C-alpha cells in the first residue's frame, strides 16, 4: 500500500456500473464545512481501535501496523472496549465505521468532506479493496483487510439507499425553460432578421462597396484589414488612378508599385480594395501618374511638407471577427459556471441594464432598416402597407404567426403615428423589446400531462441549437406544414442546417467554450517571455479550434475519437508558423500536425494557452480541464494554503516545483488525479508552443490518467504525449458519457439533473454503439421526444 495514495476526493465517486448519479457534477459542496485537518485528527485518535477490533473477528491480525500504537493519543471513541469483547461482527463494522469513516463520510454515510457511500454499486470486493488500499485518509495502514471487510459489510448492509429506479417509460421530461437569447444569439438573430439572405452579386460594386465585397456570388462584409479606397471621378477625367502611399513606397503608377484603381461607371467613381496592415499609413491618389490628390473624403490628414496634405489611414484590428455593428456588445456577460452560457432557471435574468440596451438597439435598428424590409409603399393605402409589413416582419421577429390582437396592436402603432416612417420605427422598437423576441418560447400545449411544444417553438429550438439564430424561411415553412413535429421532419432539417456555415459557427463556439479555449483571446501572457503572442496569433489559434470542430463533425462526420486523436488540424499561415509546420501555407487548410508532436483538440495551442498562467504552465489547470470537461469528474474543496503557484525557478522544472503535492498527503489526496495529467502536457509551454526543455532543463512528460472511469476504480493509464492522452480518453466510456452531457448542457442551456439521467444513459449508449459519431448524436438529440416535449 502506498501510504500517500489515500484520499478519494470529496464529491463524486463515479461508480462504474449502473446509473451513475448525475449529482456528482454538482460539485464538491460539503455540508457543514468541516475542514480537512479536523477530520484527520479524528482518524489519528481512532487508530487504537483498529488493533482491538481486528483481534476479535475471523481474520488474523497479521497486519496490525506498527504505527498504530504510536499514533494513539486520546481515548477517542468508546468502541475499543466493546469491539474486542466478542461483539456481533456487524457491530464491529459499525464501530469501525463510526471511528474511522464517519468524520469524513458522515454518520449515515451520506457524505461530508468525503463523498457519499450510500450508493455503492461496484460490488463488495471492490469496496474492500478500496478501503484496504486507500482508507482512511492519509493513514490507510490503519485499516487492514479484516477491518476493511468488516467496514464494507456494515456499509453495504446498513448504509445503502433503496436501489435507484431503473429507467422505464415514461421517463421524466425536461422542465419548461424560458430561454433568454444570449449575446451571440441576439446578434445573430438581428443579423438574420434585418438582412435578407446576402444579396447576390457579380462584382464588388453590386454590394455596399465601402464595406462589402462580392464573394462567391454573395455580398459579404470585408474583414478587418481590408480597406476600400474610393475616389469620386475627378476633373479633368483621368485615364488611370492609383493609390500611392507609405504602404507601397509611394509608387505613382501601377508599374512602380502604386495600387491601380478600377472605374465604376454606374457610380462614377474609382475604387480598389486592398489588405492594409494594422498600423497608420499615409497616402494620396495619383491620376495619370502625375496628378497627386488628397483623399478629401477622409478627414484624417497631415501636412505633406510641400504645401499639401497626405491622407492618413489608421487600421486597428481588435477583438474577434469584426462586425461593423455588434448589438450584443453592451449586454452583460452571461453566467457560465461550466463554460457554456446558461440561459434558464437561475441564469438569463433581465436587469435594467439589459432593458436599456434592448431599447437602444431597437432605436438603432429602426434607423437603419433597409428599405427592402418594408415591402410596400404607404401610398396610396398606408393601412394596407402597414398590415403587410407587420404580418411579414412581425411573424419573423416573434418567430411565429401573430395573433389577430397582436397584429392589430402593432398595425395601429403605425397608422396612428405622425408619419408612416415614425410609425414603422415605433412598431419595430416595440417588437424588439418584447419578451416574444427576447426569449425562446416553450409554452406549448398541454396534452395528457405532457407539454407539447408547438411547431414554431420547435423551429426555434432547432435554429438556436444549430445556428444560434432565428429560423430561416425553410424552417418556418416546415413549421407551418407541421413537418417538424415528426422526428424525421426534424432530422431532415437538422441535416440541412449542419451543412450551413452558421452551424460551423456554433460548433466552433461549442469547442471553445467546452474547453475554455476562448480565453486564449484574453488570457494575460508576459510580453517579455512571449513577445510573439500577438492578438493576430491569438485570434488565429481560436479560429483553428473553431474550424477543426466543424471539420471533424461536418466534413468528416467524425467521432469523439477523431476529435481527440486526429493527426490533422486546420491551420492558416499564422498557425502554421506558430507550430513550426513545414511548407508554405496561405489560407486555411487541413494539414497534418503529427510532425510537430500534436494530435487532437487537446494539442491545440488555444486550449493549452488558455489553461496556463501568464508566465508559466499550470499542470493543475490542465489536469482539471481533463477531469472536469472531458470526464465530468469533480473534486472537493482544496484545503487552506492550497493555490500557491511556486515561483518560476530557473533551476527546476514545473514538475519539480509541484513536488509538494506528491509529498504532502493532504495535497496528494486530490492531486494524484490532477497533476499526473497536467505533467503529461508539459511539452507545451504557457502559450502552447512545443518545447523539449524548460529553460535549460529537459522536460519530463511522464503522465498518468489514473482512475479514468471514476475515482475509486484504481486504474492507471500512463502516457507521455498528448496523442497518447487523446487515445486513452477516446477509448474511455466516461469520456463518452461526459461528452454527451456536455453537448446536452450546451443544447439545453442548463446543467443536467436527475430527470435527465435515464435519457442521457440511453443517448450515451447510442453514441457508443454508433461509433461516437458526433453528427449522429446531434441528430439523435433533435429526433428525441425530449426535444419537443416538456414537463408541465
Amino acid at each position, binding site marked *: 500500500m502506498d501510504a500517500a495514495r489515500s484520499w478519494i476526493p470529496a464529491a463524486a465517486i463515479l461508480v462504474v456500473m449502473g446509473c451513475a448519479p448525475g449529482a456528482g457534477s454538482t460539485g464538491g459542496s460539503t455540508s457543514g464545512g468541516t475542514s480537512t485537518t479536523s477530520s484527520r485528527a479524528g482518524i489519528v485518535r481512532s487508530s487504537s481501535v483498529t488493533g482491538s477490533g481486528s483481534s476479535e473477528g475471523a481474520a488474523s491480525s497479521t497486519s496490525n501496523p506498527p504505527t498504530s500504537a504510536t499514533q494513539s493519543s486520546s481515548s477517542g471513541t468508546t468502541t475499543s472496549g466493546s469491539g474486542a469483547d466478542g461483539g456481533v461482527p456487524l457491530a464491529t463494522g459499525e464501530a469501525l465505521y463510526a471511528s474511522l469513516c464517519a468524520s469524513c463520510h458522515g454518520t449515515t454515510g451520506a457524505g461530508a468532506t468525503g463523498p457519499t457511500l450510500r450508493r455503492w454499486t461496484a460490488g463488495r470486493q471492490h469496496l474492500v479493496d478500496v478501503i484496504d488500499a486507500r482508507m482512511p485518509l492519509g493513514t490507510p495502514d490503519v485499516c487492514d483487510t479484516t477491518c476493511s471487510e468488516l467496514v464494507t459489510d456494515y456499509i453495504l448492509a446498513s448504509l445503502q439507499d433503496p436501489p435507484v429506479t431503473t429507467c422505464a417509460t415514461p421517463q421524466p421530461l425536461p422542465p419548461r425553460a424560458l430561454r433568454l437569447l444570449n449575446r451571440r444569439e441576439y446578434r445573430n438573430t438581428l443579423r438574420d432578421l434585418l438582412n435578407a439572405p446576402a444579396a447576390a452579386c457579380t462584382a464588388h460594386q453590386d454590394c455596399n462597396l465601402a464595406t462589402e465585397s462580392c464573394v462567391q456570388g454573395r455580398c459579404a462584409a470585408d474583414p478587418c484589414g481590408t480597406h476600400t479606397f474610393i475616389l469620386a471621378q475627378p476633373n479633368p477625367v483621368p485615364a488611370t488612378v492609383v493609390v500611392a502611399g507609405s504602404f507601397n513606397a509611394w509608387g505613382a503608377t501601377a508599374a512602380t508599385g502604386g495600387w491601380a484603381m478600377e472605374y465604376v461607371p454606374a457610380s462614377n467613381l474609382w475604387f480598389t480594395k486592398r489588405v492594409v496592415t494594422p498600423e497608420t499609413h499615409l497616402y494620396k491618389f495619383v491620376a495619370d501618374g502625375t496628378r497627386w490628390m488628397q483623399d478629401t473624403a477622409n478627414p484624417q490628414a497631415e501636412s505633406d511638407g510641400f504645401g499639401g496634405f497626405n491622407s492618413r489611414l489608421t487600421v486597428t484590428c481588435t477583438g474577434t471577427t469584426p462586425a461593423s455593428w455588434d448589438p450584443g456588445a453592451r449586454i452583460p456577460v452571461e*453566467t457560465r459556471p461550466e463554460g457554456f452560457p446558461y440561459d434558464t432557471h437561475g441564469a438569463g435574468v433581465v436587469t435594467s441594464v439589459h432593458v436599456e440596451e434592448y431599447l437602444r438597439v431597437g432605436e438603432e435598428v429602426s434607423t437603419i432598416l433597409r428599405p427592402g424590409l418594408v415591402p410596400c409603399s404607404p401610398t396610396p393605402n398606408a393601412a394596407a402597407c402597414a398590415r403587410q409589413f407587420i404580418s411579414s416582419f412581425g411573424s419573423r421577429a416573434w418567430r411565429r404567426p401573430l395573433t389577430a390582437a397582436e397584429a392589430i396592436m402593432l398595425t395601429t402603432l403605425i397608422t396612428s403615428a405622425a408619419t408612416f416612417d415614425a410609425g414603422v420605427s415605433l412598431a419595430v422598437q*416595440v417588437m424588439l423589446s418584447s419578451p416574444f423576441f427576447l426569449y425562446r418560447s416553450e409554452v406549448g400545449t398541454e396534452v395528457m400531462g405532457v407539454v407539447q411544444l408547438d411547431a414554431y417553438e420547435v423551429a426555434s429550438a432547432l435554429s438556436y441549437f444549430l445556428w444560434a439564430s432565428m429560423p430561416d424561411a425553410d424552417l418556418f415553412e416546415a413549421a407551418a406544414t407541421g413537418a417538424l413535429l415528426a422526428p424525421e421532419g426534424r432530422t431532415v432539417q437538422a441535416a440541412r442546417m449542419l451543412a450551413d456555415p452558421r452551424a460551423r459557427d456554433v460548433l466552433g463556439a461549442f469547442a471553445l467554450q467546452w474547453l475554455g479555449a476562448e480565453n486564449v483571446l484574453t488570457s494575460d501572457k508576459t510580453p517579455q517571455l512571449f513577445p510573439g503572442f500577438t492578438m493576430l496569433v491569438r485570434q488565429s489559434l481560436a479560429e483553428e479550434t473553431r474550424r477543426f470542430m466543424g471539420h471533424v463533425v461536418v466534413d468528416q462526420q467524425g467521432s469523439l475519437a477523431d476529435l481527440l486523436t486526429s493527426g490533422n488540424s486546420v491551420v492558416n499561415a499564422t498557425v502554421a508558423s506558430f507550430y513550426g509546420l513545414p511548407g508554405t501555407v496561405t489560407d486555411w487548410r487541413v494539414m497534418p500536425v503529427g510532425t510537430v508532436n500534436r494530435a487532437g483538440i487537446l494539442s491545440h495551442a488555444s486550449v493549452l494557452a488558455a489553461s496556463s498562467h501568464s508566465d508559466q504552465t499550470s499542470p493543475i489547470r490542465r489536469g482539471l480541464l481533463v477531469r472536469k470537461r472531458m470526464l465530468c469528474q469533480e473534486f472537493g474543496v482544496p484545503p487552506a494554503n492550497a493555490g500557491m503557484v511556486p515561483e518560476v525557478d530557473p533551476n527546476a522544472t514545473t514538475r519539480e516545483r509541484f513536488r509538494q503535492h506528491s509529498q504532502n498527503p493532504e495535497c496528494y489526496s486530490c492531486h494524484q488525479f490532477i497533476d499526473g495529467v497536467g505533467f503529461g502536457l508539459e511539452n507545451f509551454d504557457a502559450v502552447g508552443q512545443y518545447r523539449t526543455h524548460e529553460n535549460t532543463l529537459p522536460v519530463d512528460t511522464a503522465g498518468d490518467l489514473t482512475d479514468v472511469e471514476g475515482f475509486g476504480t484504481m486504474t492507471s493509464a500512463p502516457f507521455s504525449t498528448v496523442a497518447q492522452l487523446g487515445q486513452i480518453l477516446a477509448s474511455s466510456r466516461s469520456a463518452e458519457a461526459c461528452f454527451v452531457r456536455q453537448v446536452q448542457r450546451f443544447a439545453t442551456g442548463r446543467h443536467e439533473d436527475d430527470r435527465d439521467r435515464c435519457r442521457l444513459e440511453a443517448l450515451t449508449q447510442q453514441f457508443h454503439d454508433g461509433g461516437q459519431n458526433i453528427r449522429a448524436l446531434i441528430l439523435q438529440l433533435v429526433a428525441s421526444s425530449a426535444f419537443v416535449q416538456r414537463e408541465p
Partner: protein
Amino acid sequence: MTSFSRRTLLKAGALSLPLSTLLSLRRARAAGTAQRLIIFYFPDGVAALSQDGQPSPFHAQGSETSFTLSPQLAPLETFKQDCVFLNGISLGSTDSGSHPGGAKKLLTGVDGGHGESIDQHLARTVGAMSPHRLVYLGAMANQNNASGDKHISYTGPGQTVTPEDNPQSAFERLFGAPLTGGGMTSQNANRRSVLDSSIQQVLELQGRLGTVERGRLGLHLEALREVEQRVRNASMMTGTVCNGWMPSSSAVPVASLYDPARFPETLQLQMEILVQAMACGLTRVGVIQASLHTSELIMSRFPMTEMYDAGFDMRSHQASHYGPRHDETRREYWHYLRQRKWFMAQFASLLQMLKSRPEGDGTMLDNSLVLLCSEISDGNTHSHDNMPFVLAGRGSGAVRTGRLLQFGYERHGKLLASVVNAMGRPVAGWGDAGDGLLPGLLG
C-alpha cells in the same frame, strides 16, 4: 486617447438633485438615515492570522477611541475619524469554503448565495425612487468571461448580476446626453410606449408559465418598471448639475480594458463615475467590484507603484498564498502586503472623492456609508473569521465614526443588517446569522 463621448441616443435621468432626493436628504438627517451606500470589494483578502498562528498584521489595535492602524491600513490614516474599524467579524461556515464560499455569502449573508444581497434589497426599497436603483461597476470584474460566484450582487437566490466593466459604457448609461426638450421628448414618449408594451407582454407571458419562469419574468418586469420610471421622470428634470460633467481622465479603450497596467486608472474612473452619479442623485446604492476572487490580476504591472516589476509577474491570488508565516523575505508575502495596502489606498481615494464634495452642512461622506469588504480574511488560510471589514461615513448620523470595535466573534449578517437599517430599512437581521444588529455600531 479616447475621450469620453456622450451618446446622443439615450438620455439619462436627473441632472440636478430631484425634489424627492432633497426631501429625503432632509428627512434622513433628522432621523439618522444614510443617504447612500457604496460597497467597495477587493479580492483575495488580507494578511491576517497566519497558518502558523501569528496574529493579524492587518487589523487595527487599541481601544475603541484610541487605536493605531497597521501598515496595510496606513492609507486610511487621514480618514481615521471617518471610519469604524471592525475586528472579529466572521462569515460563519460557507458551503464551498474558501473564495467562492465567501464571495457567495459576502453580501447575501446566506450560504451558497441562496438569498438576496443587501445592495439589491436596498435598490428595490429605499433606492427604488432613484433614476437608477443600483449602479454596479467593476474593474476587470468580468475578466476571461467570469460570471456566477465571481460576482457579489445577488438579485435573488442563486442569481447574480454582472457589473459593468467599461467606464465608457457606465458613463453613457448614467449621463447620456442632456435633455433639450423638443425632439427629445418624442423619443422619450416612444420609449414609454415601448416599455408599456413590453410590460403588457411580459404580464401576458407570465400568465402562461410555471413558477420558476414566472419568477424570472418578475425580475424582467421589475427592470422594465425601473427604466420606465427613469424615462418618465427624465422628462420632468431640468437643471445643469450633471450637465457637461466629464471624468478627469480619458476613457480606457475597449481593447485595453483587461490590460492589468490600466487597472488602476479603470478603477479610479469607475469610482469617480459612481460618486458623480450619486452627487447628481442618480442612485443611492452603488457597488464597486475591483477584480474578482482568486484573481489572476497581475498587480506587478501597475505602473508607478511599489509592486511594479517589469521582469516578474505577481498576481493577486498568487501573492495571497504566501505560505504558513508572515515572512517579508518571501516574495509572495512582500507583494501581498503592498497589494493590500494599494487596495486600501483606492478605498481612501473613494472616501476623498466623497469628502471633497460639500453637501448640506458637511460633505457627501457625512451622509454616506461606505463598506470595505473582501471574500476572505487571511488569503493563505482562506479563513472566514476576523474578516477585513471597514465601514466609513457617518450615514447622516446613523453611525458614530472614529472608532475601533472589537468583537470576539460576531457574524457578519449582523453587520449587513445594521447597514440596511442605517439606510432606512428596519430589518431585524440578515441572512442565516439570525436576528440581531451589530452591537454598538449604530446610533
